[in-house]
């Protein structure tokens, strides 16, 4: 089959499907779609050009016929039938979600905790819950307070990130990912893809530039093209949070590189709260699916959220009128629990360091039977879990919760929203 006629056939097929979809009547619509599909499948292997021309002209006639039928059908509006699912049921749909839970042991060879932590790059908040103690161990406290500081740069032209000295000194590997609306995308003139989660025509585009690609070496073709796009028509600039992990303890290069811009250094903010007589759900390490009468991850996440949001677990005076929420059964009431929160720009390396400290602390006798660490990613971040696309929609879910047990087993629950791929 010649390639030019192949595209013609595909176009015709698409048009036929599109037109068939417009039949107002359920029966006609389904018949037409099925007939079109079958007809094309039947003649899949035809390679005689004469026969093909014949079939194509037949198909064009059928297309005209379908169009006429559709417009006639529309004049005499048909009632939608119950199987088309437009009763009150469409009111009960919610956007898709995905919750991925993993259970393993810290020293297990398949344990992927490290990789998960590393791939969740842009975090703005973490909260740690330690039930059963009223004061954090000194080492843990120090680790939480010792999160590294980060820089806030106001009005940084994006082109600055592509200049030679910046790429040389601050970028070892990486991509520049821009999520821009349609108008900006068209003005920019850079190569990009329509966002995966938008209906066509897309209102949002994702531009991804590999900074260490060969053509991106300073002076190279690709480099000049991107630089020109970012400076010429609409010079893009934005406020940026920056942080840097240096393995060798070198002096931080970012400050000196960006010294010409409005720069301020910030420390992550630490808050801590002690709760008394808190009902805690009973967790069983081996029971990830909640089959053996212990708390399953979904209800556990709900309970953690309730603790963080500040739901009171005592019987309120309205006698259950306001809320019917209570801690999942079976539960134990602990005398005291510490909840500690850190917010700022938190690097995955720091979080991994914290996990190491947690590992040592959980082994201390008389501390809690388990610890729960929740790490929230930026909800408007254009990427999450590696470089997979992320979008906000209505909630921007982008967090994971790590539950560490005393025998060094762990659970990790990764929550994603409707504009997210499945975590690796």
């Amino acid at each position, binding site marked *: 089959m010649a390639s030019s006629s192949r595209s013609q056939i595909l176009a015709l097929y698409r048009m036929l499907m599109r037109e068939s979809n417009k039949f107002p009547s359920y029966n006609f619509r389904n018949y037409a779609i099925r007939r079109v599909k079958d007809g094309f499948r039947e003649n899949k292997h035809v390679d005689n050009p004469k026969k093909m021309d014949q079939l194509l002209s037949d198909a064009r006639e059928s297309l005209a016929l379908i169009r006429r039928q559709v417009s006639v059908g529309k004049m005499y509006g048909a009632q939608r039938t119950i199987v088309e699912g437009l009763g009150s049921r469409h009111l009960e749909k919610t956007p898709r979600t995905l919750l991925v*839970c993993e259970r393993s042991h810290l020293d297990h060879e398949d344990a992927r905790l490290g990789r998960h932590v590393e791939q969740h790059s842009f975090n703005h908040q973490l909260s740690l819950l330690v039930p059963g103690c009223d004061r954090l161990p000194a080492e843990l406290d120090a680790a939480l307070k010792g999160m590294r500081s980060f820089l806030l740069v106001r009005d940084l032209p994006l082109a600055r990130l592509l200049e030679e000295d910046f790429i040389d000194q601050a970028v070892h590997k990486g991509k520049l990912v821009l999520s821009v609306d349609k108008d900006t995308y068209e003005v920019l003139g850079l190569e990009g893809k329509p966002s995966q989660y938008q209906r066509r025509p897309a209102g949002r585009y994702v531009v991804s530039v590999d900074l260490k690609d060969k053509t991106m070496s300073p002076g190279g073709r690709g480099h000049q093209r991107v630089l020109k796009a970012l400076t010429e028509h609409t010079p893009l600039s934005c406020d940026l949070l920056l942080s840097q992990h240096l393995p060798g303890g070198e002096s931080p290069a970012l400050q000196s590189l960006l010294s010409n811009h409005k720069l301020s250094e910030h420390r992550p903010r630490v808050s801590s709260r002690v709760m008394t007589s808190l009902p805690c759900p009973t967790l069983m390490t081996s029971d990830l699916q909640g089959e053996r009468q212990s708390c399953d991850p979904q209800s556990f996440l709900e309970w953690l*959220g309730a603790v963080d949001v500040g739901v009171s677990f005592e019987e309120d005076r309205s006698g259950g009128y306001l809320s019917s929420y209570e801690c999942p059964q079976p539960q134990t009431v602990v005398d005291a629990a510490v909840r500690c929160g850190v917010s700022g720009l938190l690097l995955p390396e720091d979080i991994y360091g914290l996990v190491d400290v947690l590992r040592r602390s959980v082994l201390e006798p008389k501390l809690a039977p388990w610890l729960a660490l929740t790490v929230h990613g930026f909800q408007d971040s254009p990427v999450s879990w590696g470089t997979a696309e992320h979008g906000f929609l209505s909630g921007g*879910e982008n967090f994971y919760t790590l539950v560490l047990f005393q025998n060094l087993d762990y659970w990790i629950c990764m929550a994603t929203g409707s504009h997210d791929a499945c975590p690796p």
Partner: protein
Amino acid sequence: MQPAIFERVVVKNSPVYQYMKVSLVLEHVQTKLTAVELKHLITTGLKSLYGEVGAAFPFDLLTFEEDTLTAVLRVYSRGLVRLWSSLTLLGFFQQQRCAFRVLQVSPYLLSLTGNSRDLTLD
């Protein structure tokens, strides 16, 4: 010696509940409101839009801050669209104009506690 364990469970589209963070904007800023009054207001709105039967699903008022008039609601997933639409169309509280602003909606309560749009720096 630890037993060899590695288990991965992917749960798709199973949220029983949806959580909404909403704030109420009133015409007269000084007006005070209690949690019970707020819940009653929302229930009334639901009934006026969907009728006695359509509004017959439970929802919970998990928290309510009286000074900012911000509340966190929990609702069964199948009631989300009805609750949201009735909040949108609710326009009056005791003869004064009011409006609900839906700040965030998520199937995870934890997601509402870590909203990066509220991040403030020292």
